[in-house]
């Protein structure tokens, strides 16, 4: 039933398809997952039509199957992303991303007076609300809400 959509980006034999990424965050998702330095074949499409998101992006990574905690990192910017695990051109598993309990080194603290914005400190947050995602800085203890989440 997804035949038409799947055709928008060429099919892969084995690997992972990440769908429903907000178009504006495509390159940040690529960065977070380290796909910019990945040697495997990575194809993506951007500004594709989506009923849910307006414009969406899709990424296909050959021969990579992400661990949950790895893929959950993108929930900060792509909370509605869906994963299709592909084996032998068939979707063998579907996954949704889930907000992690902790966020390390991905987001920026919105408090300009926070030590993480003054010195080279890896940011650390506790996720205190999952929808909409709300972060509490481990250092300055200030809240960064979903509207102010900036990816490093």
């Amino acid at each position, binding site marked *: 039933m997804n035949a038409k959509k799947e055709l928008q980006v060429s099919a892969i034999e084995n690997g992972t398809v990440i769908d429903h990424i907000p178009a504006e965050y495509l390159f940040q998702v690529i960065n977070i997952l380290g796909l910019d330095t990945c040697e495997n074949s990575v194809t993506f499409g951007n500004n594709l039509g989506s009923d849910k998101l307006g414009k969406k992006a899709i990424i296909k990574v050959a021969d990579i199957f992400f661990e949950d905690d790895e893929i959950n990192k993108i929930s900060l910017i792509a909370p509605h992303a869906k994963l299709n695990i592909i084996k032998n051109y068939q979707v063998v598993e579907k996954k949704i991303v889930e907000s992690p309990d902790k966020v390390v080194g991905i987001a920026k*603290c919105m*408090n300009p007076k*926070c*030590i993480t914005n003054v*010195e080279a400190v890896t940011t650390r947050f506790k996720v205190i609300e999952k929808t909409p995602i709300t972060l509490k800085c481990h*250092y*300055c203890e*200030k809240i960064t809400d979903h509207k102010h989440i900036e990816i490093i």
Partner: protein
Amino acid sequence: MDNKSLVSIDDYTKEEILEVLARAAEFEKNPNCNLLEGKVVASLFFEPSTRTRLSFETAISRMGGKIVGFTDSSSSSVTKGETLKDTTKMVSNYCDLVVMRHPIEGSARYASEVSDVPVINAGDGANQHPTQTMLDLYSIYKTQGTLENLNIFMVGDLKYGRTVHSLLMAMSHFNPTFHFIAPKELEIPLAYKIFMDKNNINYHEHTEFNDIINEADILYMTRVQRERFADPLEYEKVKNVYILKNDMLENTRENLRILHPLPRVNEIAVDVDTNPKAYYFEQALNGVYARQAIIAKALDL
């Protein structure tokens, strides 16, 4: 060594709060001891705070410890270019405990992670000042005989006042009823209201400062600062509303005590000072005992 540090008042459980208060009472009976004999405490004040520094230094001296450090970063050998990480790492090699005051928020937590010895936060910007909270708690405990089931009234700047927020969090272990008296611009932040709702803590908000305080066990006064107002006219409107005068205390409870983190400007009229319910000067002295107890706990002494 992070676990021995005191960075945020939330680092203490209810039991630990009570343990430290009991210890503070012991130090009040016998302030002089040699628990810190042979120990060196680094007192790193990256911004000046004479009141807090003297209180810590008194506590350390009364316990027989030695102090090294600086009183503000410009007069020290810590050059502006050195990172907090490097300063902390270097100093923590020399000493048994670090007491740190720093203008940047989160600096104390970070220092506690890079330090090899425990760190006690003596204030990190607008974030936390847990030793102030412990001395406030000790003052409440001493004057009321308990921390449980009290009516706590907080007055003035409830939006930016970190002492108010930390005291609120700490008192939440003890089934309080809070009354917040503040102008709309300086009301208690939403995050704390959500916290109280989630934890079934009773609270009431008022904008008028009047005989509602007759119900109070503790009246916690804070300063309303001009620079907190975007509109100077708004400040002019409220600046004289949240001032405690002696005649307002006439029908208050016998056990009422008035606290203030000091320094005050004009928010408590001078005629209150001689009222037996005024407690803010004794409150400051309690800081030495509270800090002795906190230091002893950090070093497992």
